[in-house]
């Protein structure tokens, strides 16, 4: 296996396969160790799941495969399975003396690549290398498609990434693949061969994924099905199978986010850094999209004076800025997934501390890593009073509450609404083509940087939102006026964008669904009325509004960032 694409090729594969065995039964541990050694594998044994996780975390690339018992005293084997899958993305084999169908099914559902029944025979262990091999091939394919896609984008400046782009990319993949084929004896003929109908790989571009997410949201996550999505997407060359597999990944992705929310403390950083080429691939997508829109210099961005007041914001320029920021972030993200990860971790921690202050330092970190021009924005944020911001980093979760309060329309509520809306607008910025929107959205990308994908989500949201929500021109009329009108439109946009961000929205919506139940929907329903009311009550709130944008966004981003990070992963089909 001397394929350059493989992570750790060994000449005598599968000999030397590094196996980690986890079992609380000392007798089995000894037997398995002996059996695996007889297969010429490198064995490490462990009788505690927690200890096993530590070992895996210490040596990220130290193991090829994990074999674990299902019943263990300190941790459920399935939980360990999830952790390993999420954090290290290693193949995991479950084993148990209990062979009940339900258990086996649970194992498979949790991501086990195999389920062995005890007593385990030698011959069963001899073949475990196939799981490692299979995974490597899979990753190699994805990596290749990413690479070739990457090169395509680099070549095409300024051209829109559309469906044509997809086909073009696919074709290009073939040519790059041919190059790789020369070195790679192990590649199958139909690997990444776009012309063969049998296994034509669909490249899930930003555009395509946006359509997908939009369709999913339209249908309703619970009632979603590949056929429905396919119909809604209206992409002629896409097949039901393509959608089905993408949906499956999407689901796994969303469920992972949930878990990630629960395991932020230590694993998040690692997790991100462990993200396979998928992340890169999605970044690549984003990259291309953003690059196309990179005409306007960011300098015109007006945050440095400490407020988000959209002063003479030009629609196009702001959009461009936004996109540029996004693209910058994606570019940076691409090249620095780890950086983003670090920022990520930092952000999360700070979010726990509280929104206001930690946020600023975080921003500077992330911005440093990713953006240059966004610096002023950071500073401005720190200056803004954070009264309305909730200390708890979970305030984003409360957004739903805020939203649901909107119809109540108290003056206090407005402020709150602003905040929440500002958050929403941030996410929806790209969608709103007006400058106000862009202005409001700007801060979002910054936040997005923290979470690698955010930028991509932002841009994707832009695409999606525009499509999904016919932004009412009425609410946006105020663009030319003072900040109050802008805030209004922002809030309006937020309302809409909040619900309809395709990229982030699904994530948000999904999360909202999880956390806020129907709050979000309620808010959504009342979006229209918000527009109206906001206009009246935005006066004098613009500062807060900005504040809200600034402060809320990050936390909001934190939550959704997870999604966006993973969302990017979805771009790889």
């Amino acid at each position, binding site marked *: 296996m001397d394929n350059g694409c493989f992570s750790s090729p060994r000449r005598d594969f599968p000999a030397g396969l590094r196996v980690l065995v986890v079992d609380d*039964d000392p007798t089995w541990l000894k*037997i398995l160790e*002996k059996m695996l050694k007889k297969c010429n594998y490198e064995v490490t044994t462990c009788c505690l799941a927690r200890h096993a996780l530590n070992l895996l975390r210490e040596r990220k690339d130290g193991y090829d495969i994990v074999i674990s018992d299902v019943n263990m005293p300190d941790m459920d084997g399935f939980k360990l399975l999830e952790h390993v899958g999420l954090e290290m993305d290693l193949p995991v084999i479950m084993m148990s*003396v209990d062979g009940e169908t339900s258990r086996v099914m649970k194992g498979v559902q949790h991501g086990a690549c195999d389920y062995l029944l005890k*007593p385990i025979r030698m011959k069963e262990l001899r073949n475990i290398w196939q799981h490692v091999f299979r995974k490597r091939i899979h990753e190699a394919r994805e990596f290749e498609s990413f690479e070739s896609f990457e090169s395509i984008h680099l070549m095409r400046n300024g051209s829109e990434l559309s469906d044509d782009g997809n086909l073009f990319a696919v074709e290009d993949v073939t040519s790059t693949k041919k190059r790789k084929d020369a070195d790679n004896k192990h590649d199958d003929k139909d690997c990444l061969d776009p012309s063969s109908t049998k296994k034509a790989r669909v490249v899930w571009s930003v555009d395509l994924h946006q359509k997908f997410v939009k369709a999913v949201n339209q249908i309703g996550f619970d009632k979603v099905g590949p056929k429905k999505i396919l119909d809604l997407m209206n992409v002629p060359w896409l097949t039901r199978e393509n959608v089905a597999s993408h949906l499956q990944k999407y689901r796994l992705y969303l469920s992972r986010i949930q878990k990630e929310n629960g395991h932020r403390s230590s694993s998040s950083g690692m997790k991100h850094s462990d993200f396979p080429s998928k992340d890169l691939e999605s970044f690549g997508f984003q990259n291309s999209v953003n690059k196309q829109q990179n005409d306007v210099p960011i300098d015109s961005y007006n945050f440095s004076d400490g407020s988000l007041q959209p002063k003479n914001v030009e629609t196009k320029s702001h959009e461009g800025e936004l996109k540029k920021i996004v693209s910058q972030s994606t570019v940076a993200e691409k090249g620095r997934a780890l950086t983003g990860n670090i920022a990520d971790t930092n952000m999360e921690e700070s979010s726990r501390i509280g929104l206001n202050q930690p946020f600023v330092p975080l921003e500077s970190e992330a911005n440093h890593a990713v953006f240059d021009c966004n610096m002023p924005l950071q500073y401005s944020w720190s200056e803004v009073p954070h009264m309305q911001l909730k200390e708890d980093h979970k305030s984003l979760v409360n957004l739903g509450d805020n939203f649901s309060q909107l119809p109540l329309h108290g003056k206090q509520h407005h402020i709150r609404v602003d905040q929440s809306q500002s958050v929403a607008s941030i996410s929806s910025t790209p969608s709103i083509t007006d400058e106000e929107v862009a202005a409001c959205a700007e801060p979002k990308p910054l936040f997005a940087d923290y979470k690698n994908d955010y930028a991509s989500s932002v841009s994707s949201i832009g695409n999606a939102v525009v499509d999904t929500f016919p932004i009412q021109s009425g609410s946006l009329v105020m663009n030319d006026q003072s900040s109050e009108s802008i805030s209004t439109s922002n809030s309006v946009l937020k309302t809409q964008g909040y619900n309809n961000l395709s990229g982030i929205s699904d994530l948000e919506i999904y999360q909202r669904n999880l956390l806020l139940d129907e709050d979000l929907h309620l808010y959504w329903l009342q979006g229209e009325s918000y527009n109206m009311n906001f206009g009246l009550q935005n006066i004098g709130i613009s500062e807060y509004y900005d504040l809200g944008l600034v402060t809320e966004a990050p936390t909001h981003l934190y939550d959704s960032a997870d999604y966006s990070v993973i969302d990017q992963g979805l771009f790889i089909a």
Partner: protein
Amino acid sequence: MEVDQMQRQCLDYTKSLFLEGFLDGQFVQLQQLQDENNHDFVVEVVSLFFEDSERLLNDLTFALDQKSIDFKKVDAHVHQLKGSSSSIGAQRVKNCCIEFRNFCEEQNIDACLSCLQQVKQEYCHVKNKLETLIRLEQQIVAAGGSIPTMEF
């Protein structure tokens, strides 16, 4: 006694254990795993089994002795014992555990207690048998011979 005589005796004894259902194919696997690198492998594994089983049996006795029995815990112990016994191929013990678990599910205290007795008995049986076998094998090795293995 001649080495080959001892070997024959050992083989016959092992066969009888299989025929009587004390041991199953897993034990043969263990024997096959033993090689020149690790000629005490079977003994080590069997010793581990003894230790583990005795601990589990104690835990089981304790758990079933409580005023209010935690059947989940009892079931967990039995499950562990089942796994342990399957590791060396102690078939009878394993079968006992399967029955034991059913009664745990039903939360039938009396049946559980009787199962506990049964599993303890089976464990003692297989322990004796294995100890005898190991002694025979060690005699052969001491006499310069090699341990005969069965093909299963």
